[in-house]
């Protein structure tokens, strides 16, 4: 579906999105776009509606007003799992790993969109099922290698330290070979080294797999470093959009952030 889109061309367009929960407005008339292959940051003070934005993009929330255009097609009420199949993967602000499963299984689950063996062949574990399992295991192993988490391959994720869990979650998202990868505060609560690692991984992902990345992050330093363009939200409204340079000199943004502590 995304194959037609050249790097630099528009991959996703958000048009006048408004979203509210029982009267509470989360997003008001937000519009912006994401170009193929770029790192697009969505920033803003707490409660600015950043996460809601991601939830709209991957179809978990359905805005009352506005349209989402993906790969040049207007989206009509697709379910999250269908959207995942269209090549949008994400990580979550508070880690949403499958606690009962090992690192390997978590990442394998992220691979579901690429597996299709029917129930019968899975039941007897012959033919397509086994082949496909092995094929995808190999791909997953490449991700494990990429994220340097070989040593925790078979550890239940529940036992892993926070930083590693974040990494596994990234791995799970990568396993889907996404066209567009949504990262919701991938570095929240990390120390300097961990943040450096994570930024390195994110940039490597972009260069290795040519993945388009939309990222929410509070650490301004990091965001300004790794992103090509930023959208700034405040109280559900867009108050800025442009390159790190432009954003730095954007009065509205500066005001919005005045007094707002960014960790």
């Amino acid at each position, binding site marked *: 579906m995304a194959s037609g889109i050249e790097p630099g061309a528009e991959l996703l367009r958000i048009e006048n999105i408004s979203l509210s929960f029982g009267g509470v407005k989360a997003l008001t008339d937000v519009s912006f776009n994401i170009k193929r292959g770029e790192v697009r940051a969505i920033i803003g003070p707490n409660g600015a509606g950043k996460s809601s934005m991601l939830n709209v993009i991957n179809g978990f929330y359905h805005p009352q007003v506005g349209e989402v255009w993906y790969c040049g097609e207007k989206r009509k009420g697709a379910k999250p799992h269908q959207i995942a199949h269209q090549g949008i993967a994400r990580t979550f602000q508070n880690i949403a790993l499958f606690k009962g499963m090992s690192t390997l*299984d978590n990442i394998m*689950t992220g691979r579901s969109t690429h597996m299709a*063996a029917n129930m019968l062949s899975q039941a007897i574990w012959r033919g397509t099922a086994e082949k496909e*399992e092995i094929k995808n295991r190999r791909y997953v192993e490449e991700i494990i290698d990429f994220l340097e988490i070989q040593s925790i391959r078979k550890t239940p994720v529940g036992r892993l330290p926070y930083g590693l869990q974040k990494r596994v979650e990234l791995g799970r998202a990568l396993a889907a070979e996404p066209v567009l990868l949504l990262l919701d505060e991938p570095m929240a609560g990390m120390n300097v080294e961990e943040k450096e690692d994570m930024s390195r991984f994110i940039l490597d992902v972009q260069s290795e797999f040519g993945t388009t990345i939309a990222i929410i992050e509070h650490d301004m330093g990091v965001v300004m470093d790794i992103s090509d363009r930023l959208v700034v939200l405040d109280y559900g409204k867009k108050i800025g959009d442009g390159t790190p340079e432009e954003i730095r000199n954007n009065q509205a943004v500066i005001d919005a952030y005045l007094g707002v502590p960014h960790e």
Partner: protein
Amino acid sequence: MFYRQAGDFKTTYRDDIQTFPLKQDRWGYYIVLAVAFLVVPFFINDYWTSAVMLPFLIYAIAALGLNILTGYCGQVSLGTGGFLAVGAYASYKIMTSFPDLNIFIVVLLSGVVTAAVGMLFGIPSLRIKGFYLAVATLAAQFFLVWLFNKVPWFYNNSASGQISVPERSMFGFAITGPNADAPVRYLFCLTFLVLLAWVARNLTRGRLGRSWMAIRDMDIAAEIIGVNPLKSKLSAFAVSSFFIGVAGALFFSVYLGAVEVGEAFGITQSFLVLFMIIIGGLGSIFGSFAGAAFLVLVPVLLKNIMVNWLGWPTDIAVHIEFMVVGGLIVLFLIAEPHGLAQLWRLAKDKFLLWPFPH
């Protein structure tokens, strides 16, 4: 302590993802199988068959089924009794309508029928969770039992309202009916159990199984990364019901021979099987076996002690049995929510790490 992993390394993914990666485990498994198939049949008598073996084998199948739904996919069901009934009545209707059909096929078909019914009652799970769903499954339990009670077609208008199994045989051996020998019935059920356990293992270690567990652990995240909740949940209901249906068919045709739906497949059955997987361990194949074995043996044990040794009246034995079972459930939920399977796992880890404590 007896484990020797050294030198046991894997050069292919096939070896790496096999069910028993450790050589010693593999051998243990083969030995158990050999004993079960080649040794036990020559030593069991009718008492052991009907008091211990058949119930164990059949409940193990049911437990596997429920464990797939509840343990792996996280959907609590109190409708097990009802689905067992479906299996039983399906097998009865099929046997009576197609007298020449091989009993093996009959049992499988009963499973298929039950799977269909299971999916039907699984539909609400798409909207509701936790014990809301549990309550919804009660609807299945009571409605189905009522149905088999009230609609004569199901029991071919038999006066008693009971259904009783006609004799069916394979390779000249009577499998069902009064002439079936203990070893034959045992082997017949054992075959199904081994077969289905193997299937359960395959399903739970593959894509489907992972999608079930994903739904169980964090359904929203699961859907967002591309797991289709509809397919996952309904498939879980289908597979689970299939297992339970087979169990029901065997329960009726091979074990009891004649049943009255109300008493054979009441709500207590639902709880019994649920208890089995709680005590055995949610989300564990081994747990299903352990739980079934445990809850089949404990009553037999208690009965033998209290009635046969101490010569107490049976009703007291029953009361105490209730207390013990109930107590055990609470105890397990408090002490080891992951059941016998977890205890087994811990013991194994100890041996793997031996002599190191951790």
